């Protein structure tokens, strides 16, 4: 029997019981639809994390003191004091792949404006920091190198801090607030950045010259980190190698000693986060895959009933010349048509449902081609797999018995 005839026979058989065919399809439709929606949500959140990090500057490189052994005990890196002005000077003098560099020190404390106060952190940095972190000012001016040299008591203020210290909408520019015991004059307001992927409020910050934070607040000569920009995103790896070499020299490390600092790029961060959301995608896919399997079992169930119910038809077809193989192929084809049609409807449903999710829940979603192809292939396989057994049962029937079946 030719394939065309086979498809024709199977289609006609399905047409004779449209409702049952549709109900069988429903399992596959929901299965495929949910695979697509789930993967779209997973991919969407992955992309949004990536976008958020790009907004932070994907060519940003951070150096932090490394964790190290102290008498056999591992000490957290941040408490180490290895980064100093010497490193900045060395990097500025020798690095080719980095364009801008800023030391970083952070201090936690209470920001106070009259009777109002707010716990926040102050980042000490050089003027380049704004560029490196892709921060911009909504109002006012940034501090200058001169402010750094003089350890000026000026600061830039984040939006959340403004909201809490100036709740009545006064212009904070020019006002003096206290951070700890030190009065700072506000010279600029940072444009809001919102929350980052970790759920941290990026606007809950004060930025001041690093010298001011070091000398007037922390009384230290060390940095808690160094921020730099690579010339572009592709050069980050080269920049990392270069910085590592320069810092090793600057710290006079011998070849056998471990680095006493770590250099991180945002790409690593992106990879870490992507793998987290990949895990999410896998999880969602597994859930959706289970529904696809259940859909397949639905097909098998209906095909079984169908074979029993149509025993007489099978007997007739055999008596007029259908071979066992023809019967097998017919029932298999019916299962495949059900699953492929269900697959197509499921894909469409997936697209629609994804749009609905995006519109109503405002979740970012991305429909990837691979998820469409994958779910489609899986559902066709499901059809063949679950359709085979009942079809084989049908093909093995004895025509005499089948004809007499009531």
């Amino acid at each position, binding site marked *: *029997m030719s394939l065309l005839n086979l498809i024709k026979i199977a289609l006609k058989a399905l047409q004779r019981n449209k409702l049952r065919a549709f109900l069988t399809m429903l399992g596959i439709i929901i299965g495929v639809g949910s695979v697509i929606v789930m993967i779209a949500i997973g991919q969407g959140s992955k992309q949004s994390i990536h976008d958020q990090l790009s907004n932070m500057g994907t060519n940003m490189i951070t150096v932090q003191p490394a964790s190290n052994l102290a008498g056999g005990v591992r000490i957290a890196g941040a408490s180490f004091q290895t980064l100093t002005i010497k490193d900045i000077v060395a990097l500025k003098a020798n690095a080719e792949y980095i364009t801008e560099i800023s030391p970083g020190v952070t201090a936690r404390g209470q920001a106070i404006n009259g009777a109002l106060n707010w716990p926040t952190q102050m980042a000490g940095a050089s003027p380049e920091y704004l560029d490196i972190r892709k921060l911009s000012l909504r109002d006012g001016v940034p501090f200058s190198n001169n402010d750094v040299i003089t350890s000026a008591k000026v600061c830039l203020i984040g939006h959340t801090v403004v909201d809490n210290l100036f709740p009545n909408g006064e212009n904070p520019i020019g006002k003096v607030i206290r951070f700890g015991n030190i009065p700072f004059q506000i010279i600029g307001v940072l444009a809001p950045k919102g929350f980052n992927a970790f759920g941290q409020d990026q606007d809950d910050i004060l930025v001041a010259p690093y010298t001011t934070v070091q000398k007037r607040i922390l009384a230290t000569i060390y940095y808690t980190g160094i921020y730099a920009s690579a010339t572009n995103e592709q050069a980050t790896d080269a920049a990392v190698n270069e910085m590592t070499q320069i810092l090793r020299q600057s710290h006079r490390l011998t070849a056998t000693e471990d680095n006493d600092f770590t250099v991180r790029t945002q790409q690593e961060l992106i990879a870490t986060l992507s793998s987290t959301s990949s895990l999410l995608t896998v999880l969602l896919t597994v859930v959706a895959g289970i529904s696809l399997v259940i859909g397949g079992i639905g097909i098998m169930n209906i095909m079984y009933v169908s074979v029993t119910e149509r025993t007489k038809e099978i007997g007739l077809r*055999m008596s007029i010349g*259908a071979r*066992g193989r023809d019967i097998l192929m017919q029932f298999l084809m019916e299962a495949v048509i059900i699953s492929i049609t269900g697959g197509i409807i499921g894909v469409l449903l997936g697209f629609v449902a994804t749009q609905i999710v995006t519109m109503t829940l405002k979740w970012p979603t991305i429909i990837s081609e691979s998820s469409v192809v994958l779910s489609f292939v899986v559902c066709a396989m499901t059809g063949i797999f679950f359709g085979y057994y009942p079809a084989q049962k049908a093909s093995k029937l004895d025509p005499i018995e089948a004809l007499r079946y009531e």
Partner: protein
Amino acid sequence: MSKNILEIRDLKRDFVMGSETVHALNGVSFDVSAGDFITIMGSSGSGKTTLLNILGCLDKPTAGSYLLDGVDVKKLSRDELANLRNRKIGFVFQAYNLLPRTTAIENVELPLLYNKAINSAERRERAMRALEAVKLSDRFDHTPSQLSGGQQQRVAIARALVNEPVMILADEATGNLDSRTSYEIMALVQELNSQQGKTIVFVTHEPDIASFSDRTIQLHDGHVQKDILNEHKRSATEVLAALPPKDSV
């Protein structure tokens, strides 16, 4: 002498039921030549159905030989038997066995779907011709539920004709019909036999029906009890004409 379509020699069919062996057919021999119209009669348990299954290539004999149009059925595989049924035999069943919710013409086309050599245009044309032969071409798009019993059986006969078989094998084909419709069907069968020269093997238990055929083979306990030529073959058309008009029934 015309060619033999069926050659049956000492045909035996045993069924093993637990420890007992049942001899359903116990040495049956006869020939049917092309253009014959024979009826096979017998009471229940006479081996009628078993013989029919073997004649229809649905079953194989335990012993003896069965040549259908020169082909020794005993040597064929399951698939080859299916092919033989497709090309050489037209079945007509007691319960019509039409596919439900399927139009008459699609039902008639069915055997041709299993014949690769025939394309869809030819299939439709031959199905239409078969329906014309049973005078139902105007009902080609009706489904079985829209047809009367007699019409359904005529569709089934068209389905048996469509593959141009060497033999039409009817199993109690009038069993579900009233006598008037039975005669109509028999008139059609006689017409196919006399005008188109179709070989017809008609299994029945009604002597009334058997009287329309050329020859009757009577089975009893797995043997041929009688094999007689009907000297007084009746014409179903005449019998029909002799019946009181439909309205008065």
